[in-house]
């Protein structure tokens, strides 16, 4: 039984060393390509990544699960990410707060953030109005202005669209629609309702793959009401200087992806459950005749890498939890006055939702492994501090009296008597802390730390249960293994 535990530990450490932290090829520039969690972003990131791999000597690192615009943008500014796909409208609204004009965006991003804005990729993923082909045909509706003639139509729109000033209220004014007959409805339900005819008009994103599945038609925005969400890449100037061939790659992609192509690619992922990497490879083959480089990783290898990173995150975080928690527990035992403050602080840390704690680390440590480690280590503190304190306090006063009376120094009493007797308690705390770390580390993928969370999050985004399980099952097994491993150590210590 002991040997099983040792084998498990050895396997964990081996996977960590082999696959944990990718070490860049000697001297070759490394490009970190990122995206948010949406399907389209992941496909675009893959296209760029594979094109770079095929046409340049650079090494590509993918981080395609960022939790939102601000997270990935911060990562870009901090240098943890070199490039990611973004939309002109988002840059205006969320980043620059200025109206759209490509030249101005490019100039402003360079001036303010030292960022290079690639040429537009060729499609505009903005709001559109969708109708069933039959209804549109019968009523002869092709553009939004045609809807003014049909106040009898029932609209089902997302809650966001219903309220935003650049949504329905603005649209009604711009097109003189009056007040349309609108209800709010979830996006997935809206498509079904539209197909069944319960509603006749809904809002959508123009490149949404689902539009193809239902064969809906989209109406022309003939008064140019909706803002432009033109896709492009944001790239760090510094990365462009270090890897100058990227400029040529971006030029290749400029204008290369039209709305139809993008919609079709989204549909391949969302509806046919093809991986973004395979869809990207298909695109590159078709448009540039590029066969996927042999370097593209198999799923097994990617999984091993994610597992390796996950083990790394867990072990290093637990190590630091112990490194900080043990002295805190000792201090809490010795200083009753410090005790309350310490327990309060580590207790409060634990009550912060893990996603919030991760987010709080970003302004301090940026994006990636470091902030994740800090958050995980803090998160795992409570069980270790509490158990250290409890373990030390249950050492009987007679033993302490004997130890002192025999002539042991305070330090010797701590190291030879108190800590060894408290050890089973402390290890139980380590066990809890380690299991928490394995679980929380799955969320750390949101801030670019990698790990098994990459699979789970990607699976959730792509609505792909297979991929979710690919991350979730190893994570669960890892938690069980870690629990069992520390438990065996505990037993061995107790004897």
């Amino acid at each position, binding site marked *: 039984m002991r040997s099983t535990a040792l084998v498990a530990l050895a396997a964990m450490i081996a996977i960590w060393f082999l696959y944990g932290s990718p070490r860049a090829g000697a001297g070759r520039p490394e490009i970190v390509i990122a995206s948010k969690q949406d399907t389209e972003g992941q496909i675009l990131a893959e296209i760029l990544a594979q094109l770079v791999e095929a046409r340049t000597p650079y090494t590509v690192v993918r981080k395609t699960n960022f939790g939102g615009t601000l997270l990935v943008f911060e990562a870009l500014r901090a240098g943890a990410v070199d490039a990611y796909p973004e939309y002109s409208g988002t840059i205006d609204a969320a980043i620059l707060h200025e109206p759209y004009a490509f030249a101005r965006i490019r100039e402003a991003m360079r001036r303010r953030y030292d960022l290079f804005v690639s040429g537009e990729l060729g499609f505009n993923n903005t709001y559109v109005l969708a109708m069933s082909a039959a209804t549109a045909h019968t009523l002869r509706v092709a553009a939004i202005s045609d809807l003014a003639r049909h106040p009898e139509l029932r609209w089902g729109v997302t809650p966001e669209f219903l309220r935003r000033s650049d949504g329905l209220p603005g649209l009604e004014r711009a097109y003189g629609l009056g007040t349309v007959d609108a209800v709010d409805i979830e996006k997935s339900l809206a498509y079904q309702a539209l197909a069944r005819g319960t509603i006749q008009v809904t809002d959508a994103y123009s490149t949404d793959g689902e539009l193809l599945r239902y064969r809906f038609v989209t109406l022309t925005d003939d008064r140019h009401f909706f803002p432009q969400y033109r896709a492009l890449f944001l790239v760090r100037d510094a990365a462009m200087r270090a890897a100058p061939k990227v400029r040529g790659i971006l030029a290749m992609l400029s204008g290369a992806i039209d709305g139809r192509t993008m919609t079709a690619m989204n549909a391949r992922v969302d509806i046919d459950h093809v991986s973004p990497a395979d869809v990207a490879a298909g695109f590159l083959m078709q448009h540039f005749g590029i066969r996927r480089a042999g370097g593209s990783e198999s799923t097994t290898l990617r999984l091993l890498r994610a597992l390796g990173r996950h083990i790394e995150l867990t072990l290093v975080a637990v190590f630091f939890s112990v490194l900080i928690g043990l002295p805190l527990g000792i201090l809490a035992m010795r200083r009753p006055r410090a005790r309350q403050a310490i327990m309060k602080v580590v207790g409060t840390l634990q009550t912060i939702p893990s996603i919030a704690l991760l987010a709080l680390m970003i302004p301090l440590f940026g994006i990636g492994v470091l902030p994740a480690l800090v958050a995980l280590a803090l998160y795992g503190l409570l069980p270790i501090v509490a158990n250290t304190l409890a373990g030390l306090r249950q050492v009987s006063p*007679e*033993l302490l*009296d*004997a*130890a*002192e*009376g*025999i*002539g*042991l*120094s305070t330090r*010797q009493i701590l190291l*030879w*008597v108190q800590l*060894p*007797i408290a050890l089973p308690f402390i290890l139980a705390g380590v066990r809890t802390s380690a299991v928490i770390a394995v679980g929380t580390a799955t969320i750390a993928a949101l801030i670019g730390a990698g790990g098994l969370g990459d699979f789970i999050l990607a699976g959730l985004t792509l609505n792909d249960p297979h991929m979710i399980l690919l991350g979730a099952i190893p994570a669960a097994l890892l938690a069980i293994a870690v629990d069992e491993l520390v438990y065996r150590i505990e037993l061995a210590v107790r004897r």
Partner: protein
Amino acid sequence: MSPALIRFENVTKRFGTQVVLDGVTLEVMEGELLVVIGHSGSGKTTLLRCVNGLVLPEEGCVLVDGHAVAVGDLTALRRRVGYVIQAGGLFPHMTVEQNVAIVGRATGEDTARRSARAAEVLATVGLGDLGPRFPRELSGGQQHRVGIARALYADPAIMLLDEPFAAVDPLARMELQDEFVRLHRQLHKTMLFVTHDVDEALYLGDRVAVFERGRLLQVDTPRTLRQRPASEYIARFLRRRAAEGTT
């Protein structure tokens, strides 16, 4: 008479407002086994703990081998004074040998030396072959002997024993007492022995000091105490407890 190895000079100790030791003056001679007896709470343990500096009195002073016990180097003093407490105070996670040799470890002796010395003292208390065992594998009587062996390890001139046999059953206790008398004759150490058992006190002590509420009432040989108790209280105390037998 041989010189005093321990001297209490007008020692007063308070815990808060409670006076636990009240102007105690007492000498323990070299090689003497002095037993301290009194009701529970009369200050016996506190008196003992003044000798190795676990308690520091507010007034008066305690001299060990002519040197005042003070805040300074208490650890060194404690390593030169054997200390045995009621439950034995053995460390449950250490083997008998490790328990016995802990002072050697504290003073940085090498393992070979520690192990040799531990075997020696364990033999002295008749536990020659128990070194590798853990305390919980031993009987109560054996555990007490390990406690004594541990106190003997550094060959201290002085030993302090706080009700070492109180928790053992009567038969085992008598055996331990006999052995202890033998040990004292053989090693000739200066011993301060606390008990609340009158029979034990009269049986073991070269002299017996009777305490009541922090005051030393009388200190004399067992024979003198029995024949000429200083007060009616002492006479009653000795009679009653002796009649009750061991409790």
